[in-house]
Structure formats: structure tokens, C-alpha cells
């Protein structure tokens, strides 16, 4: 019996570390344990096995445990094998490559290069810091600012309307559309003979070479990225809005607050968790995305106007065969994302504690 108690404790501790959902698992597990070993005492005759269990409880228990462990690892085997080959190995490989000089082909040609790849990225005259990294930040910031503003306005208004499901479906269409379709449709809408310039001309304005002019190229792509991510932001913000208790609005109405005061003093502050969540996730997405840019401007042109860090990594590797410096660029961007994410989450927690 002593072994049973010990193992139950062990399970409890283990489950506790798993967090909320695990906690529930522990409660269930504890009950199941009780049923199995002290079944006679807790829930009497319901369980037929109790008699059998009492004959050789320890041996049965051990065998059962071994079998369950074996089954568990069998079920996990495909996933664990996958993570070993496609997660752990690639990470080690990426670090190794970033510290090597290698032109591709035979792995035997890998030469150690120390931190040369990293110093080269930040050397004077390197385009990595400016404009590539600054473009990356501008791209992510611009996307978040546009998508968040649009999503707040639309989500706020949608809750006042009929047919909310219909509107939501419309706004969701870009999310299930491949980046190749989104990118090309917009690319050709931006062309002189395309829809956007058609609208400008109809309004009596002159055509703009959106993607060919270095000044307008990056903002033009940012608009598309924001357009494509509006739907999920609206979805999350709508859910956040619905969670705000109605009594606040009634109280404000009694106090005679106008709609804009209500929006600024009640809606926005109470929506902060959802806002920050959308902010963090969209910012991370913005920092790492480059598929849309490849589709719309090819190599990040004109010049380096739309070149971002992930695209730079992609080109160094697959266009110039410079695997070492490409891996270094990838790791730098990864660390940057980790730092920014942690900072945002820290802010998120602190603000959350205030509220």
C-alpha cells in the first residue's frame, strides 16, 4: 500500500506542474487510483475487480504500469521521432551552419568560421542592419498599426449590426486564401492598368507606380498584409467585446456618457487583453513573414526597398548558396523575435496585473 501512496503523490506533483488542465487530470487520476486500490472502501461493490486486485496488488500494479508506459511511448513514438529529425537536428544544424563556411554540396566541405558570419552581418556597409532589419520592423509595425485600427473599428461596429455571421464570413475570406492569390491579385491591382489606379484615375488623380517606386513599395505591401490579417483580428476582438459585461454600458448611459466617451473610457480599457494579444501575435507574424513579399516584389525590390530579414535569409541561402551567413541571419532574426515577444509578454502581464 505504501508504494501506491508514493506513486499517487508523484503523479500529483507531476500533474501540478502541467498547469491548469493538468490539475484537472490530477483530480481524475487520484480518483481512479482510489478506485483501483482501495475500491472496497471508497466505492464498494461497484467495481468487480477489487477482489482480484487484493490477491496480488503490487505485482498487478507494476505490470499495469509497465504496460501503460510501453503503450504511451508507442503512441508517442512517431511524434518523438519527428521532433528529433525535424526539430532538434535542424536547430543544431542551423547553429552549426551559422558558425561555418560552406558552399553547399558535400557536408565534408564544411569549414569552421567562428562568428565571422555574424560579424559580417553587422559590418560597416552591410545592408542587413539598414535597410533590411529596419524594413522588417517597419513592416511588422505598419501591419499591426493598420490591422489593429481597422479591426477595432470594424469589430466595434459589427456588434451593433444584424447578420454578424455574414459580415464575419466576408472579412474572413482572405485568411483561407493562399498568399500567391492574395499577392498576385493585389500586385496587378496596383499596376497602372489595375483597379487601384483605375479608382485613382476616376477620382481625377494621377496613377501611382505603387510597387515600382521605392517610397511607396513597402507601405503598399504592408497594406496587403494588414488586409489579409484583418479577419482573425476582428474575430478575436469581437469575442473580447462580447465578454465586456453589459452593466458597464448601462451605467455609462445613466450617467449620460456619449458614444465616443463610452468607447474611449469603457470599451478600449476593458478590451486591453484582447488588443494586446492581437498586437503580440500579429507583430510576431509580421517580423517573420516574407511569402507575400516574394510574390509581390520578387527579390524585395525596387533595390532593397521591400527586403526584410527572412527574405534576406532565404536569398542568401537559396539564391547565392551562402548557407553560413543565411543561417546566421535566421538566428539573429529568431533571437530578435524572442526578445521582442518576451518584452511584449512582460508588458502584457504587468498591465494585466494593474487591470
Amino acid at each position: 500500500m505504501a508504494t501506491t501512496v508514493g506513486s499517487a503523490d508523484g503523479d500529483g506533483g507531476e500533474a501540478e506542474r502541467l498547469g491548469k488542465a493538468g490539475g484537472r487530470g490530477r483530480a481524475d487520476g487520484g480518483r481512479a487510483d482510489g478506485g483501483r486500490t482501495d475500491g472496497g472502501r471508497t466505492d464498494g461493490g461497484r467495481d468487480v475487480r477489487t477482489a482480484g486486485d487484493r490477491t496480488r496488488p503490487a505485482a498487478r500494479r507494476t505490470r499495469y504500469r509497465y504496460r501503460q508506459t510501453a503503450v504511451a511511448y508507442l503512441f508517442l513514438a512517431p511524434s518523438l521521432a519527428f521532433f528529433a529529425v525535424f526539430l532538434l537536428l535542424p536547430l543544431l544544424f542551423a547553429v552549426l551552419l551559422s558558425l561555418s563556411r560552406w558552399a553547399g554540396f558535400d557536408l565534408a566541405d564544411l569549414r569552421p568560421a567562428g562568428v565571422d558570419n555574424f560579424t559580417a552581418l553587422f559590418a560597416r556597409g552591410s545592408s542587413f542592419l539598414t535597410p533590411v532589419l529596419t524594413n522588417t520592423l517597419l513592416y511588422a509595425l505598419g501591419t499591426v498599426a493598420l490591422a489593429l485600427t481597422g479591426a477595432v473599428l470594424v469589430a466595434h461596429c459589427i456588434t451593433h449590426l444584424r447578420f454578424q455571421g455574414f459580415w464575419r464570413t466576408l472579412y474572413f475570406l482572405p485568411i483561407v486564401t493562399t498568399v500567391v492569390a492574395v499577392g498576385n491579385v493585389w500586385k496587378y491591382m496596383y499596376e497602372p492598368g489595375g483597379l487601384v489606379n483605375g479608382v485613382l484615375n476616376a477620382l481625377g488623380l494621377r496613377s501611382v507606380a505603387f510597387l515600382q517606386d521605392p517610397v511607396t513599395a513597402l507601405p503598399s505591401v504592408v497594406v496587403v498584409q494588414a488586409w489579409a490579417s484583418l479577419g482573425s483580428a476582428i474575430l478575436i476582438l469581437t469575442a473580447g467585446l462580447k465578454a465586456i459585461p453589459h452593466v458597464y454600458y448601462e451605467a455609462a448611459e445613466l450617467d449620460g456618457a456619449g458614444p465616443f466617451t463610452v468607447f474611449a473610457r469603457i470599451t478600449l480599457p476593458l478590451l486591453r487583453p484582447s488588443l494586446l494579444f492581437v498586437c503580440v501575435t500579429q507583430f510576431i507574424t509580421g517580423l517573420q513573414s516574407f511569402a507575400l513579399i516574394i510574390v509581390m516584389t520578387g527579390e524585395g525590390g525596387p533595390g532593397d526597398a521591400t527586403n526584410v530579414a527572412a527574405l534576406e535569409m532565404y536569398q542568401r541561402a537559396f539564391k547565392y548558396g551562402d548557407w553560413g551567413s543565411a543561417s546566421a541571419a535566421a538566428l539573429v532574426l529568431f533571437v530578435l523575435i524572442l526578445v521582442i515577444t518576451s518584452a511584449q509578454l512582460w508588458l502584457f502581464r504587468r498591465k494585466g496585473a494593474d487591470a
Partner: protein
Amino acid sequence: MRRRGRFPWLSYLLVGIGAVVTVVPFLDMLLTSFKGPGEYGRLPYRFLPEAFDLSNYREAFVRLDLPLLFRNSVVATAVITGSVLLTSSLAGYALAKLRFPGRDLIFRLVLATMMFPPFVFFIPHFLILVHWPLAGGNGLLGDGGAGLTVSLAALVMPFLVSGFGIFLMRQFIVSVPDEMLEAARIDGAGEFTVWWRIVVPQTRPVAVTLALLTFVGAWNEYIWALLVSTANPRLMTLPVGIQTLQSYLDPHRMVPVMMAGLVLSVLPVLLLFLLLQKHYIRGVMLSGLK
């Protein structure tokens, strides 16, 4: 619960403008796909085509090996979706309902896998597949041949297991009552039978959600498919194949053809989404990402 502000017309106006901006590019794609030769790019711009010309769809079949592209996209998407469902459910069951040493550690590992952005893996995944030992003419050390890029395996392998999928399934399997599992075990069922007969039917709704998210992601995937098809053009998927039309020298002739190809490639996913959007939307809420 619906609140009505004092300016419902303002709300309608704002949401309406947003909806138009969202939908018009789709309409432009569809309408441009019907424009005849020389009609795209002619000034002044006209939204509607002069006639509903289907020749661009025929032309898309001439310029592209659409059957091959469709086949690759369908096979890759089906294999990835099936594999993610199976591995996520099995691993999720083990992590939620079986007790064994190392469970805590493995669950943490699964959570950790979700924090690595995909771009970190493009280079090493590509090199690993090219240098896969004893495949595609490679020697034991993985040199000398094309590795796994000779087959469709290259297209699907990096996506066969999803840390998010395992996490999602685990969170839902935890709430399957232990009594049901115990009852089956008393009746002599092995763990595999318990999983197949009880856990799988009980978690069908979340499985549909996961399947849909995975399906849409795999169908729309671009960068990895692009990389793999630079090594082996026979592995092109729909997005990659259609993108090649951009390199034609007469863009104005090619744009409507490209739009026709895009309509064909976008349609299956849009229809699936419209049919099953409740499940998809739940998935986006659960993942919060995307």
C-alpha cells in the same frame, strides 16, 4: 445580446466599406479571369469584362500542367492532414490519459516546439532532405544524389507532425471522462482499442477543427513547396505552378490566365471554408495565431 448604438447607420457604413475593400479584390480576380486578350491593362480601367471569355481557363491548362499541380496539391494536403490527425490524437491521448515517467518533460517539449517560427527551419530542412542517407542516389553519409527531393515525400515530411495539434488534442482528451476509459479496460480492451473506440469518437469535433486548419494551411503553403520544386519541378503544387506565370514576358496577356488559375486553386478551399466555417473559426479562436 446585441447592443444598438445611437448611430447604426455609421456602423453599417463603416462595416460596409470594410467589407467592400475585403471582397473587391476577390471579385477583381474573378472578373479579370474572364477578360479577353489585351483587355487587362487597357486604359481607362474597367471593372467588368467586355464578354465572359472562358479562353483564359483553357489557356491555363495549356501553359501549366494543371493535372500534375492538382495531384501534387491534393496528395500533399491529404497526407499531411491525415498524418497530423493521427499523430496528434495518439500523442494527445498518451499525454492526457496515460501515466508514465517522462510525461511532464514530453509535454513541455511539445509546448516548446510551438515557439519556433517556420523560417528557422527552411534551410536545415531542405539540407536534411537533400542529404537524406540512402535516398535518391545518396550514399550512407547522405552525399552524391538528390535525396528525398526525388519524391513527393519532400513536400510533406516537414509537416507530418504538429506540436499545436498534439497540444490541442491533449487539451480536449483530458476532458473525456476516465470512467468511460476504465469501463472499456475492464471489458478487456487494450489501450489501442480504448483510443480508437472511445477517444476518437469523443473528440470528433476538435478533430474536424484540427483537420480543417491543417488542410487549409497545407493547401495554401507556398515557400516550402517553392524550395522543393526548385530542386525537382515535378513537385510543384498549385500555388508554385501558378506563380511561374509571373515570369512570362507579356504580362498583360498572362494576367487573366493567371487569375483563371488562381480562381481554380482558391475555389476548393473557399467552398470548404464556407461549408465548415464554424469549425474553422473555432480553430482560429483556439490557436489565436494565423
